[in-house]
């Protein structure tokens, strides 16, 4: 146990003992002392001990809503649910118009499958607080359980509008659309689902949540802020955690991450380096340092960091993938290829590695191998635009005549054009047309693409496209499937 937690527990316990020994303390005050100790024990996950404290508190101070309320949450966390319901009901009885109690009690009823009992609670909550996303979320789930799908959609869409960051709502909404037979909308919602639920404004639980002073407690709180995109708050929590446990590599690594998100790359590097100094085996810090270095164009340092990450954790696939990518990009495609091969030995279906390996082969001018790998990949990922586009480029413009197949390139690109009309795809279509000897058409397509790129202000793209246009105007095909910039 961390000393800070031990001190907290000792202090709370001493406060309770002091109350007991004092003799003439009012029941409500003694109850509060038990309750406060219960809160701390609950925050530290000593659930059984906390339960006893809350029970004592509730008997000594029966009019105090807090103790059955916390007890309800405690049973919600550790079971049994029936006791959670009883406790929340008691809290509700003591404070009938508290929206947080209404929402949590309704939630517990829903978990019990009692949507009929939950419904009036959420309705009451909405009456008290019409813009409560949590209450709309609950009402939407009630409607879903009662197969009132239009009602569910209405409430859940309202909940999302009120609290767009509560990504868990997308799932419920997706299920509501599914039940209505609207599968496209269902899939669209499901694709956006997350784990953050809308919560009621709940100062009591917030107080409990912020009670425990331990490194890991701050790590958890900071992590939550990080997930919500609150970088400054996350940084604050991580720093507090580090003040209690400076050697914690996870805390410091996450502090570095939060700093980087805030734009403080130097601060992030400092934190990552400190983790590496004190915990060299903490491969995530090596990885993160590599990412920061790579973003700053410090390729050699990035390579070193990624290499260290995979040295300490040989199964760290993301780090090996990044290492391969940087090696290829910095003119060491053979070494990069070897790293890609290692990734694929562990995970033969990993898309990024399959693509990266093919592009490394292009860098090595092993066009046949690249074509074969991309062809294999398309069998695994039929219609995947990245693979079909890259293959079309190779088939249209590879310097190796045995690789080129203009007709197949055109077929691939025609398929791709049904869903994607980018400059790149347009340029590839022109390459394929040129390979088929249709130079006028190739030039016409290329001019259209150039005009669009000029309109978009993409000067670099225009320059390259113009070079190819000149080829087509001279009735010559393209033999550069990818520019250096285009290769990953």
């Amino acid at each position, binding site marked *: *146990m*961390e000393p800070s937690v*031990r001190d907290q*527990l000792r202090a709370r*316990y001493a406060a309770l003992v002091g109350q007991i*020994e004092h003799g003439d303390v009012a029941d409500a005050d*003694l109850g509060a002392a038990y309750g406060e100790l219960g809160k701390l*024990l609950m*925050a*530290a*996950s*000593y659930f*059984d*001990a*906390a339960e*006893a*404290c809350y029970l*004592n508190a509730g*008997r*000594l101070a029966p009019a105090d809503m807090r103790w059955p309320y916390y007890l309800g949450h405690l*049973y919600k966390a*550790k*079971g*049994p*649910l*029936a*006791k959670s319901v009883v406790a929340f009901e008691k809290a509700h009885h003591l404070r009938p118009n508290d929206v947080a109690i209404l929402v949590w009690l309704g939630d517990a009823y*829903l*978990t*019990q*499958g009692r949507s009929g009992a939950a419904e009036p609670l959420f309705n009451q909550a909405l009456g008290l607080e019409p813009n409560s996303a949590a209450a709309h979320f609950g009402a939407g*789930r009630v409607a879903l*359980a009662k197969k009132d799908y239009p009602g569910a959609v209405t409430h859940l869409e309202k909940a999302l509008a009120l609290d767009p960051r509560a990504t868990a709502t997308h*799932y*419920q909404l997706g*299920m509501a659309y*599914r039940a209505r037979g609207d*599968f496209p909308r*269902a*899939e669209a919602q*499901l694709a956006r*689902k*997350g*784990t953050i639920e809308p919560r009621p404004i709940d100062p009591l639980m917030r107080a409990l949540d912020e009670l*425990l002073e*331990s*490194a890991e*407690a701050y790590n*958890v709180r900071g992590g939550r802020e990080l997930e919500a995109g609150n970088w400054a708050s996350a940084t604050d929590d991580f720093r507090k955690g580090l003040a209690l446990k400076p050697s914690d590599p996870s805390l410091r690594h996450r502090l570095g991450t939060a700093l980087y998100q805030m734009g403080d790359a130097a601060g992030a590097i400092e934190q990552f380096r400190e983790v590496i100094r004190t915990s060299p*085996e903490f*491969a995530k810090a090596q990885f993160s340092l590599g990412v920061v270095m790579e973003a700053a164009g410090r390729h050699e340092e990035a390579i070193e960091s990624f290499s260290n990450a995979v040295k300490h*954790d040989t*199964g*760290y*696939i993301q780090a090996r993938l990044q290492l391969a990518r940087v090696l290829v990009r910095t003119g060491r495609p053979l070494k990069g290829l070897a790293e890609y091969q290692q990734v694929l030995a*562990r995970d*033969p279906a990993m*898309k990024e590695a399959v693509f990266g390996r093919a592009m490394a082969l292009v860098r090595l001018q092993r066009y046949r191998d690249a074509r074969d790998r991309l062809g294999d990949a398309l069998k*695994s*990922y039929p219609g995947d635009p990245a693979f079909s586009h890259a293959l079309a480029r190779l088939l249209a413009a590879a310097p190796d005549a045995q690789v080129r197949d203009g007709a197949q390139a055109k077929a691939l690109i025609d398929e791709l054009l049904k869903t994607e009309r980018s400059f790149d795809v347009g340029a590839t279509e022109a390459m394929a047309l040129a390979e088929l000897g249709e130079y006028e058409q190739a030039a016409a397509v290329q001019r259209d693409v150039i005009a669009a790129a000029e309109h978009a202000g993409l000067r670099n793209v225009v320059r390259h496209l113009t070079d190819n246009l000149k080829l087509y105007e001279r009735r010559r095909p393209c033999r550069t499937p990818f520019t250096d910039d285009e290769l990953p």
Partner: protein
Amino acid sequence: MNTRRIGRGTVEGHGWPSLHPPNELLGVSRSLARGVPMLLVLGLLVGCYSDSSSRATGATSSTAARRANGAASEWFVDRAIESDLKFTYFNGMSGGLYYPEMLPGGVALLDYDNDGDLDVFFVQGQMLGEGKTLDDATIRPASLPLKGRLFRNDLVVNADGTRTLHFTDVTEQSGIDTHEYGMGVAAADFNNDGCVDLYVTNLGRNQLFRNNCDGTFTDVSRQSGTDIAGWSVSAAFVDYDRDGWLDLYVGNYVVWDIRSDQKCTGLTGRRDYCTPAVYSPQRDRLFHNNGNGTFTDVTATALPGGPFGPTLGVATADFDNDGWIDLYVANDGRDNVLWMNQRNGTFKNMGLLSGVAVGADGKPKGSMGVDAGDFDNDGAEDLITTQLPSEGINLYRNVGSGLFEDESAASGLGPMTLGYTGFGTAWFDFDNDGWLDLLVANGAIEAIKERGEERFPYGEPKLLFRNLRNGRFENVTPKAGSLFQLLEVSRGAAFGDIDNDGDVDVVISNIHAPARLLINSVGNRNHWVGLRLVGASARSRPTREAGAGSVTGRDMVGARVEVIRKNAPTLWRRSRSDGSYGSANDPRVLVGLGDATDPPMARVHWPDGDVEEWPAVAIDRWTVLRQGKRMAR
């Protein structure tokens, strides 16, 4: 296990009592007077322990074990010791809190010697940690050597119909030589020779043991191409392409080795086991059976693009009733995956839209055990997943066409399992009333603080639920037997009729506690039909079958049978050995009939699409239904 420590279920091995000496605390408690129930106060002060009625934590292992020795009224009685089925899983812990220690191990029920009764195979662990020896072990192994053990069932059916169970450890003569840290096991006849083979999943390289049909096995791991390295837990043999050969799905967990082991702490700063979120998932593998003793890894082409998560459970069934077997994969802390068979050698993940990827709240769960079965007798395969204490278990009801509704709350199963950490499980009709019930083998993955003084404070009781035939379940654990109250770290559970008496028994593997052989003493009070669904194979050899004479061929796992009853709804059941947690079940089909005495019709839907009918199947005995031997429908 799906989240970082978030303030619930974290660990304190030396919790509150260590803050103050107990006598000092008791001195304080004596001074208390006003309004505070003394028992509660004492509970608080000598360990902050409240009333324990909410959980069956009151019985100690020893007292419960004494009680477990067979009250006649108990539905399940542990017969492991008296039948010499003695095995204890050793997890190799030495204080380092290495992640794999918490997740093993599985158990298989298989008739390896084709004598008509189920034998038992347990996977076994090893010491974990560089340079660690048994001298470093926190808890010494119950027996050596540390190898997976095969026990032969020497069942004797006495003249009066009673059974005498006895098991003999035949590991050495069987040739099964496991040499990794065992996690789970799958059992089926991959080479169609009529003898069931074993696939052992490991932390390390997996092993495939081919049954030589003479009581011995040969390790064909390498030549078969299935000896992948890493960390696998559950695997399933499944004929996904209907070519008559069993393919193999291997569920992999996370990328872990001793050098990448992370140190995790609970909220109060005490070390604890990590969660899967700390590690990268290791991709699952699908191996196509080439029919010549080898397999080809078709993961990339058959399961294009994933997704893959940290897999702990695998169940196979035809979830959309199109005649092609689908795959359901239970992931720990990430969305579960429903691989729908596209009938062309590939699968498509339909988990989210089908409604089986996450819980009703939209969040991925720490799914561990899994099983598919038709609990509501509507002809569609439903799903169950066992999970973390804060999640309860999930019941997904198949409403047809592969779409599911989450009935965890409505069934009562979700609320009733809050507070338990579920692993091995199965749909099985323990009372033969024609409705599938549920057993869950539990065991925590985070130390239970109030038992912090114990060397391995992770024990939880087991649970038994009876199907109330209306979509709801009743917790009947108190009637199930005192063994259910034992606080054990249970993991794998395998289900089958071990004494061939017409009801389903259960073998449970525990970490650092004896395995349990739960003999069912109530099921055969009702009537039943027992079916072994067997495919014809030119290669297979004659075998003996309980009450059925000599048979050949392999169990057709994946075959479905309609049991058509007079004046009662049709029951759909399936031959399967997969499901549960890292374990292999009896592939035979045991169907409870309640008090009905009319022989039912059996209509079998074979995995290759053939359908055959048997007009009247004898009740209260085991019968072999062989493909191609009855009228095609």
